[in-house]
């Protein structure tokens, strides 16, 4: 899982990096978790579509040798949503997959996150979601760690 905490905070634009973290965390959330986060912030679901939720393709870029020139490795489905709150705030979401309802909820959450009075409650809810994902990732990492291997080369008789 991409730990949103890996995103280095940019001192020049604290709002952008905080928003990136919030959007990344919302991207990990289920529809129920997003609804719950909105409810905790006392935010309604009312929003106008700037663009109806839409599924499209992004080309996934790899790099030759892992660190060299980029190449097109293949595409992925991505669903995006863009909304405007009655107060004028606009919110966006871009998620892998085809879940339009989830993208729209995340876009609404992104819009409410921009309201200073809603932000603390939304960030608290998102932090709880990130913690749950991190716990699952840690469990998976422990299982992989148990397969750590040390091979020994057997010396040949004449050596």
């Amino acid at each position, binding site marked *: 899982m991409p730990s949103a905490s890996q995103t280095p905070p940019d001192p020049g634009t604290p709002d952008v990096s905080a928003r990136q973290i919030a959007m990344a965390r919302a991207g990990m959330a289920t529809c129920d978790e997003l609804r719950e986060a909105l409810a905790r912030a006392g935010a309604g679901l009312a929003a106008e579509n700037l663009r109806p939720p839409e599924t499209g393709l992004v080309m996934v870029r790899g790099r030759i040798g892992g660190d060299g020139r980029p190449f097109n490795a293949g595409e992925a489905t991505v669903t*995006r949503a863009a909304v405007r709150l009655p107060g004028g705030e606009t919110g966006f979401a871009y998620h892998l997959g085809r879940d339009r309802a989830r993208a729209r909820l995340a876009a609404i959450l992104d819009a409410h996150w921009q309201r200073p009075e809603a932000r603390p409650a939304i960030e608290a809810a998102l932090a709880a979601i990130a913690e749950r994902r991190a716990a699952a990732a840690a469990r998976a990492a422990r*299982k992989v*760690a148990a397969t750590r291997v040390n091979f020994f080369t057997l010396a040949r008789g004449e050596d």
Partner: protein
Amino acid sequence: MYVAVKGGEAAIDNAHRLLAETRRGDPSVPDLGVAQIREQMRLLVDRVMTEGSLYDPDLAALALKQARGDVVEAVFLVRAYRTTLPRLGATEALDTGAMTLARRISATFKDLPGGQVLGPTFDYTHRLVDFSLAEGAAPAPAAEAEPDEAACPRVTDLLGQAGLLEPSPPDVGAPIGDLTREPVDYPADRALRLQALARGDEGFLLALGYSTQRGYGRTHPFVGEIRVGAVALAFTPEELGFPVSLGTVEMTECQMINQFQGHGAVPPQFTRGYGLVFGQGERKAMAMALVDRSLRAAELGEAVVVPAQDQEFVLAHCDSLQATGFVEHMKLPHYVDFQAELDLVRRLRAEHAARAAVPEEAEPQESQPQEFEEPTRREAAE
């Protein structure tokens, strides 16, 4: 040549209804859920995503269900689906060095920083059929251990620092060819070749890679590193102007390193082949890396003499969908075409019989093989 036919609508409709019923199989056996395919036939799903060139596990699983498990048919469905979607853009280039590892091995370095983890692998299993699975036995829980927090840089990044290994080709901001947008022009550069190989048929690339190991264009390969795991994707939407996380995709990367004698001003060093595929696809990633290196023959001053070094041969034939399209179209009615061939063979036989009736002292060139001329193709509406 194919000439259109018409008719048969009712039979075709009924064949499709029969297909749907046959696909379902015995109705007394529970219907297979898409989530079951996604979770329990994961490597098959990964193969369909890779060759379909579209990362979407649920879609690939559904395509497999519809295709009755036929990989190429499922790839066809996925590729057809993608043509219905708009292209929103391209991701930032992903960083496999930051992968959350599910597996990481090296056949060349025992002690690499970050260590080796086997992960969920068939390697070292005894390949004995496990009949307890037929009884629906649940697996024992996986063992757990404290993870090592050390960074796991790509092995090739470490060896490269000593100059023993050629560096990756630098990112000079050159345009990135996309074969889904423009037909491939030969010679194709390495980036475009890798795109074609990434979506190429696993069986075809496996056989070609194998051919290089057996002596048809030897490249003396070693597995520098195979890593499998989750890689984060970032995308910068125009309306935001900053990158957002799209989520993570499972990928497999293979770094093959190959003996190289050096030439001209280039000292002897190891060269590299690269493989990168969706999901856990080690065989495909390894085959891709072998063929990638092999296709670099001309660039590295090696003679281009075998199929795996011939980029037009490899790239024009590695796509399972293109290959099956041309092979399988032979099943469609070719009545007009065949009628022309039939007329030709009848005429040739008549001429042959006429010559046989002529006495022995006929001209000496009689004994030469008869040229079989390409018949004049007749085109007809029906």
